[in-house]
């Protein structure tokens, strides 16, 4: 994992977002690099989901600057994000149980030939994508998603995100509902995405997962980005302190700011 000195793929500067009177994101800087897994950690209500939704265009932000591959950009809606190659795998998966793997992976972006669905091509592409991710756990791409296990569903959701030559894949708690073996499978897949050159953002509460796959860790505390560090430079305990207190040693918020933040932060719920 080469260092963080390369040019970031996506860079956010000074991002502010409020819902009415509640300031959810406060001067957030965030950058993600190709070929790396960036873990986004933070306690409930720290603003992780809001940050992701601002990136994906579901929420508009109040102020702040977005740069993609060095160019300044604006994201007005999910379409803009998708056009840039930013794909999000939501916690609740967003798969249709009554459709098969191929149909789910191409949903909304089906291949057509003379207005008719081009099933063979889609089936081939889906199989190739799964093979490129070295997924060996699904029997047939024509299986209904209803018949898949939690880990397999997560795999399909992730494969769906990378099918489109995407550059950034954001995973919202991909292992939250999985068992030990399936978690290992999904984490392996996450690592492979980054090794294939994608910029991966992993939102997780599980420190073991975070340290298992991430190159960099970004910690949010009450709507503020308190640290973006290399995973090898910090310990488990330091990250927990950053999440819960906003600072750890010389990392994170300066002591007086920390107190001020904690005081005006009652009401942040996102």
């Amino acid at each position, binding site marked *: 994992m080469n260092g963080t000195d390369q040019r970031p793929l996506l860079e956010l500067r000074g991002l502010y977002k409020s819902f009415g009177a509640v300031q959810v994101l406060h001067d957030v800087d965030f950058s993600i690099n190709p070929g790396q897994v960036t873990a986004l950690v933070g306690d409930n209500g720290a603003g992780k989901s809001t940050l992701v939704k601002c990136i994906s265009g579901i929420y508009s932000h109040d102020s702040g600057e977005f740069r993609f591959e060095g160019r300044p950009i604006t994201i007005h809606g*999910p*379409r803009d994000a*998708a056009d840039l190659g930013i794909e999000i795998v*939501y916690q*609740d*998966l*967003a*798969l*249709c*149980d*009554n*459709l098969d793997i191929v*149909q789910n992976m191409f*949903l*909304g*972006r*089906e291949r*057509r030939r003379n*207005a*008719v*669905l081009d099933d*063979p091509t889609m*089936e*081939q592409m889906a*199989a*190739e994508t*799964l*093979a490129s991710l070295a*997924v*060996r*756990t*699904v*029997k*047939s*791409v*024509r299986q*209904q998603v*209803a*018949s898949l296990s939690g880990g397999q569903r997560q795999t399909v959701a992730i494969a769906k995100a990378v099918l489109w030559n995407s550059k950034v894949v954001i995973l919202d708690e991909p292992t939250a509902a999985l068992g030990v073996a399936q978690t290992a499978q999904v984490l392996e897949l996450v690592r492979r995405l980054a090794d294939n050159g994608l910029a991966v953002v992993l939102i997780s509460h599980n420190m073991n997962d975070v340290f298992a796959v991430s190159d960099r860790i970004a910690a949010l505390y009450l709507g503020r980005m308190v640290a973006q560090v290399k995973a090898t430079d910090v310990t488990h305990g330091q990250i927990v302190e950053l999440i819960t207190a906003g600072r750890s040693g010389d990392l994170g918020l300066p002591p007086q700011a920390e107190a001020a933040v904690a005081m005006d932060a009652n009401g942040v719920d996102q």
Partner: protein
Amino acid sequence: MTALRTPADATGVEAAPLSSYVNGYWSRVRGGEMGALPAILGLIVLCTVFSIVRPAFLTAGNFANLLPQGAAVTVIAMGLVFVLLLGEIDLSAGYTSGVCAAILALALSDYDLPWYLAILAALVTGTVVGFVLGSLVAKVGIPSFVVTLAAFLAFQGVVLLLIKGGTIISIQDPVILAIGNKNVPPVLGWVLFALGVGAYAAVQLLRIRGRQRRGLTHDPLSLVLIRVGALAVLGGWAVYVLNQERSRNPAIVSLKGVPIVVPIIVALLVILTFVLKRTGYGLHIYAVGGNREAARRAGINTDRIRISAFVVCSTMAAVGGIIAASRANSVDANTGGSNVLLYAVGAAVIGGTSLFGGKGRILDAVLGGAVVAVIDNGMGLMGFSSGVRFIVTGSVLLLAAGVDALSRRRAATAGLR
């Protein structure tokens, strides 16, 4: 968990043997995915019982009667499948067909329009009704149950107003009358049959060839041959029987051939099945029915899909109304009323379309429509009063809905849903 078949190692993949398909089907049935099995078994049992109790049931004449009798309900059920696939319901489909039939009759009698313009007027009426109902459901957000229940009542009134109280508008136009009452010439019947079976076989074989060329798994040839063979035998037998002379007095008037509604239903079956299974629009209907939020996130305009399903449903109801009006030679206050809607919903559900959305086929409407028509016809022959017939049909609908609900539970425990 075996390895995924990638194109690289798929070169050696041949069609799986027939036995594995049989096993796969059987395990799906046991897992609660019964599909059309209950309808087919029910059809066999009902036909056997009625044939034994009333030999008149098994005559060519009765067979030829049965088909147009069930045609209107079957066509309405085909449209209902679209709405049911979304997990919605259209309770007004019956009276929508009545309104459209009344428009047709008025256009023919009061306005002296030619038959094709009258049909167009009826179809456009259905389309507009569907658009309004769908918009109320999708855009305003009123539950479809309430919207269509209100429409059910209102359209009953519209029919009464259109036919000015209790009068009966008779239909004289020979073309319209032919739809529900006349037969296809025997030779043309055989030609259509040959074309249909040939086209089906060609489509199936071409699909296998295409998938083979790309190294994808495909149905075994034997299975396809069995399907084509079954279609040829059943269809051929039906055409043969229907082409027999069934007039009591052939010297005065000859009565033979396949009823015209049969090719109409087959054509609708093929077209709508193609729309649902082979186009992006059809896939989006299933997606919205399966998980609306997922469909929305995938960029599908779910409102438009939902409105369009109601448009298809009401337009098909208009087609059903035209067939019903033609069959009855007239339109009255009861056209599309009484049991029509429940028979249509029953047909779709008995055929295997789920009331919970996301599961169903157009073929279900045809198979279920056949079950409903056989019950109605057979019990009529046995001399049961219409009271008993309603009770039995109601029970069958309840049974089908129960099978649907139980198979969902079974599928949930089997990990299929």
